[in-house]
């Protein structure tokens, strides 16, 4: 991945992920907007998804749900997650 610029929101969400998951060996700018967040990318798993959902509900005031048809894409990349937050924040 190269040339991916972070938007302000993406940096904010990257910071939230790092804080929620205690990823002490990585900085917000190092989470590529288009790279996968789960296996093979950052290597996150379902417990992490629960942690991130918790942090999102606290910071942006909405709840994630398993029956959301967009679920397959929400957690695919930092960019997708940021867009989902932008659409749903309260």
């Amino acid at each position, binding site marked *: 991945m190269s040339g991916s610029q972070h938007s302000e929101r993406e940096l904010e969400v990257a910071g939230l992920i790092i804080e929620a998951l205690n*990823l002490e*060996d990585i900085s917000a700018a190092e989470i590529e907007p288009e790279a996968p967040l789960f*296996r093979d990318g950052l*290597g996150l798993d*379902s*417990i992490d998804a629960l942690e991130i959902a*918790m942090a999102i*509900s606290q910071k942006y005031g909405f709840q994630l749900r*398993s*029956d959301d048809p967009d679920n397959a894409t929400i957690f695919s990349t930092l960019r997708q997650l940021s867009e989902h937050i932008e659409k749903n924040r309260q």
Partner: protein
Amino acid sequence: MKLNLTQHANSHSLVAWNEQLQITHAQFLADVMHVAAHLPDNRYAINLCEDRYYFMVAFAAVIVKSQTNLLPQNRVLETLDAVLEDYADSYCITEERLAGLELQQLNMNALFKKENKFSRAKNTIETPAIDDELIAAIAFTSGSTGKPKGNRKTWKALVMGAEMAAERFSLDKKPTYIVSTVPPQHMYGLETSILYSLQNTCPVYVGRPFYPEDIRRVIESAPRPVILITTPVHLRACVSSGNLQWNGIAFIISATAPLRIEIARQVEDTMKATVNEIFGCTEAGSMASRETLKEESWQLYKGMRIYQAEGKTYIDAPYMENSVVLNDIVEIEDEHHFKLLGRDEDMVNIAGKRGSLSDVKLKLESIEGVKDAAVYFPDDNNEVSRLTAFVVTDKLTTQQISTALARKVDSVFIPRPIYKVPDLPYNETGKLTRQALIDLLCKCKAKIV
């Protein structure tokens, strides 16, 4: 002796439900007979179904055919291959084909699309009786040697376990609806969702709600009385996810790891229900419970016995031939009560999954290019703390190590962070003490290694 597959008294008694479906006892038996008729003749079935109803039907069909359910702790290929080394005469039941697994795979979605010849006469199907000595399931735990350890569960053990729980939680008094977040392949999940439904006539919600809002919605629309069966990880998420309104839970059961008192208090305040914890292990099943905010001590299920000999603690169950050694350090108060003081240092519990530090270390060391490795688990009382690893290697990046390990262990046991170090701080006797690892961690964090 034979014991019935279910205790449901009549054909319209409810076995499972969701927002669209009400699955009666008659329908369940018809589904079980339908699936049983399509099972191959092997001895073992690896039951990987994620849908709780599919799991339950497959589980029942397998034992109706006098076969054994194998319940691995995850679907990582290396785990499944290790199970198959010891249980070669197996096939696998799933909803989706598992790539890379060289084994006959039976697809439940496809089976449920086929015509069910038992459906027409479903009200006349007799409840099958199962030999009580049949090994109904083998539940796997990660051993300390790198190989999964199989724990054999006779049908009698599962039925009696359900009876003991019914007595403890008064489940036999009236039909209690169950909503569970725990996978049925986990011993606790198997006992509290599948067996409570079959043997304690508690209808179980077929889905597996995951996010707090999922759980809240299912509870909201569930018939009453409804109980929530879950883990500390989910309870913490439920009480920390903004302003969710909870109503109508009769009580909550938590297990897989100790629930912190602060969390239990928040749960009772916001979810408006009493929290009970179950204590158990894969080897012996559920064995004791407590009401977290009222009791520090655990009360044994009726019929279980705990004793100590030669520095070890043993559990005796009426359904087991031999006593089981407990990995936890306990203080026995009287015949029926004990306190938990701590745990064996090698065994850790991450997000409800139990694993061995030496097992993860062995698997790290088996990665080509890794010369030496050590694994550390912080004792910080956090539900979601992960392992930290120190690895000696000149060839690999930490990302490569993590990717290689993902093929060998469940994701929760992949250390985060992984530090590359020039060597490990062994003492004169060749041991790595916990303190030495803590010191090393401080140096790594300060980037002075």
